[in-house]
């Protein structure tokens, strides 16, 4: 089994707000992230796939296809967007780094044919990242 990781970057804005909380609770729990005008990050995405190396191609996965898929399914949807207002998943779920990692997994996992998705890592800043392994 070989693991391959492809990196990509996207920039987006978001804010944290739950309709289940009162305005005071939202401010207390989410602090500055509750500003309804949003704020932005340069996100780094790492997608790790795993599989056996194909004896003919020498590939675990065709990198060009993986790169195109990441562009189509994730970057085209999230790059230079206001996540709360423009990305369907975040009309209901709060676009925390945790939920972004889960959304990326759910977008890529059904599309991958050659290799298996192993991990989605999303860096919100160099000091904060989330890993999602598809665990329930």
């Amino acid at each position: 089994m070989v693991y391959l990781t492809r990196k990509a970057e996207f920039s987006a804005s978001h804010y944290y707000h739950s309709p289940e909380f009162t305005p005071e609770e939202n401010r207390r729990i989410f602090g500055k992230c509750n500003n309804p005008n949003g704020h932005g990050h340069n996100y780094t995405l790492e997608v790790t796939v795993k599989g056996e190396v194909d004896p003919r191609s020498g590939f675990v996965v065709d990198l060009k296809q993986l790169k195109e898929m990441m562009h189509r399914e994730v970057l085209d949807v999230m790059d230079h967007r206001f996540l709360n207002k423009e990305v369907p998943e975040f009309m209901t779920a709060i676009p925390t780094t945790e939920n972004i990692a889960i959304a990326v997994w759910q977008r890529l996992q059904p599309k991958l044919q050659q290799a298996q998705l192993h991990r989605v890592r999303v860096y919100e800043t160099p000091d904060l990242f989330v890993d999602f392994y598809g665990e329930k």
Partner: protein
Amino acid sequence: MKAHLTRRYLFSASHRLHSPEMSVAENLATYGKCNNPHGHGHNYSLEVTVSGTVDTTTGMVCNLVDLDQCVEREVLSRYHLENLNTKKEFTVTVPTTENLCIEIFEILQRSLGHAHLEKVRLEETMMNSFEYTGNNGPPR
């Protein structure tokens, strides 16, 4: 849905590697320049990984403010700009980065109530890093 969240913190500290169980010559042979009696320092990079179910209301594994406050109170305020050898946990135990990594894991395991502590990763320099997971199995 279960996710792993990692937060990075920086602190700087000095230490000297010297074991009372070894002779002067053995200490010097084992620890080399790190055995310098006056000590030396590093900028440590600490990565704390917690795991848990993503809360459906908040979208979070744990509240970052709570995590930051806990690490600041229990670890950074204890070690940042300090000499590790002066700490009680390192009076007998040598403050290698291995031992510091284990110590920080155990401190956080006792004090983190917000999420499950998965791993502590400690970089002593850009070239050396150490990971400790307690009973969580090998690092992923």
